[in-house]
């Protein structure tokens, strides 16, 4: 499997007046054309890892890494202007709430067409055709009508599909999805995942899927990284997540109630101070 993205020793720090908060502490992994899940609880640094790959850490935050390469391009060496060309063209990101990512005063179809025109030199008519195709691909039944809708006129599930359409229309090499379906109902969530799954497979993209939902990641991804306190504590095949070894992962799994396995009391995760001190795992393949 060819390596699409390699991250080596990634750090994200936030400097406050009195103390430094280290959100990501030396994370290393590689990504092929696969679906990689990053799971962890809030504050584990999973979202910051996603943002750092796009170099989207704003001051007072700062990032550093020994290596950050996308398909042979050294992302650390690029200027901000060059980086902007990478974002959206070669790497796209889907956020949790589509309402904040879409421009509220521009019709959604035009936003998708614009995203496509920024990538490919085509005229408006062609961009419109492509945008409609894309809306169709994300299983929007009436693309013509949705094309002319404003973001506030669409439901949450529809909004997230539109986001996916917009992010995938430039055909990026890598898609980073940060809790893309957490705000949606379970059935809508599954439908959105199915669309993402299909498109990623067809276009041979790499996908980084950031989520707090262990079961979802286990069933959706190929490989999983488990993050705790800014480090990768364990990595395994998604199918084998339930055989995980690290006490943190085990504890998380045990604390989940299960429909078919009743327990009188749920296991409570006892956090061991040693986990925080342990070095992270290099999840490169």
């Amino acid at each position, binding site marked *: 499997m060819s390596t699409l993205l390699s991250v080596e020793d990634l750090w994200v720090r936030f400097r406050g007046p009195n103390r430094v908060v280290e959100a990501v502490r030396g994370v290393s992994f590689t990504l092929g054309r696969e679906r990689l899940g990053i799971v962890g*609880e*809030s504050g584990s640094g999973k979202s910051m890892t996603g943002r750092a790959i796009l170099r989207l850490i704003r001051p007072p935050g700062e990032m550093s890494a020994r290596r950050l390469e996308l398909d042979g391009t050294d992302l650390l060496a690029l200027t901000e202007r060059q980086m902007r060309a990478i974002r959206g063209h070669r790497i796209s990101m889907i956020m949790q709430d589509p309402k904040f990512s879409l421009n509220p005063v521009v019709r959604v179809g035009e936003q998708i067409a614009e995203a496509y025109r920024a990538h490919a030199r085509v005229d408006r008519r062609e961009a419109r055709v492509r945008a409609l195709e894309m809306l169709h691909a994300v299983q929007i039944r009436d693309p013509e009508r949705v094309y002319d809708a404003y973001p506030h006129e669409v439901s*949450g599930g529809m909004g997230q599909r539109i986001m996916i359409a917009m992010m995938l229309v430039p055909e990026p090499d890598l898609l980073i999805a940060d809790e893309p379906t957490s705000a949606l*109902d*379970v*059935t*809508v*969530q*599954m*439908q959105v*995942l*199915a669309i993402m*799954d299909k498109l990623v497979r067809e276009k041979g993209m790499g996908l980084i899927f950031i989520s*707090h939902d*262990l*079961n*979802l990641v*286990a*069933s*959706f991804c190929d490989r999983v990284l488990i993050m705790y306190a800014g480090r990768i504590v364990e990595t395994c095949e998604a199918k084998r997540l339930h055989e995980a070894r690290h006490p943190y992962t085990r*504890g*998380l799994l045990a*604390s*989940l*109630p*299960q*429909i*078919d396995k*009743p*327990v009188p*009391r*749920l*296991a*409570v*995760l006892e956090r061991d101070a040693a986990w925080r001190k342990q070095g992270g795992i290099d999840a490169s393949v």
Partner: protein
Amino acid sequence: MPASETTALGSAGKAPKAPSERRAEAPARDALPPPAIAVSDLRVAFGKGAERFEAVRGVSFSVASGQSYGLVGESGSGKSTVLRAIAGLIDDWSGRIEVKGRPVEKKRRARSFYRTLQMVFQDPYGSLHPRHTVDRMLSEPLAFHRFDHIEKRIERVLEDVGLGPAFRFRYPHQLSGGQRQRIAIARALVLEPSILLLDEPTSALDVSVQAEILNLLKDLQAERRLTYLLVTHNLAVVAHMCSEIAVMNAGEIVEVMSVEQLRRMAPTHPYTRQLLDASTGYDAEKVARFERFA
């Protein structure tokens, strides 16, 4: 204890309903204690004229005293609206709601209602007043309901929810999500109600914190013989907490099942089936078969 413990819960002056309008289990009613909550033909509509939208369309169920009853559904199913109507946070509803055998009013409720029934909200970040200390949040209800030994009660309820006295004078921003939800539970319990309405109490929390809160709720129920009405979208959480589960879709209860039935993954209604499929992880083939239920 409050001075007037035996005040009527609702308006006793309402004409009694005709026998035919009573619920099916009415004959057994004289022998058994009344259900903690009984809802019949509840309807709630929002908006007026052409914008009128019926969020709850004729819902009936009853929760036995000491039981945990689950209400599951997706957003827009009307499950939270049912809860808010029972709590008195919505006053524009029709139908009949009885708490401990007494019908409740639509507008202002008697003080004693709030000493019988309390609510825990979904968002631990939004349900605590940002400028009030924990102490104020707990002492205000006690003072308003003229409880005695306020100091002792506050200390005890903080102990009961697993927080020490050290948390008493903190502001919400000095607490973690799990601690906030414990405070919210303490606030609900401080008036010593026998019924708790739980509106997605763990959906905003990390899974490990969720386990702690669910355990706490179970312990408190055993200690205080509480009745729970739990609203959630998470089937695993209801399966863990509740003995009976009503599934709601588009303002109606589509199925009522026992927890055993849920554990066997043997629902009868196709909507419940689909919800169950969606809750057990991603499976492309199952998703392809999803339909729309309205």
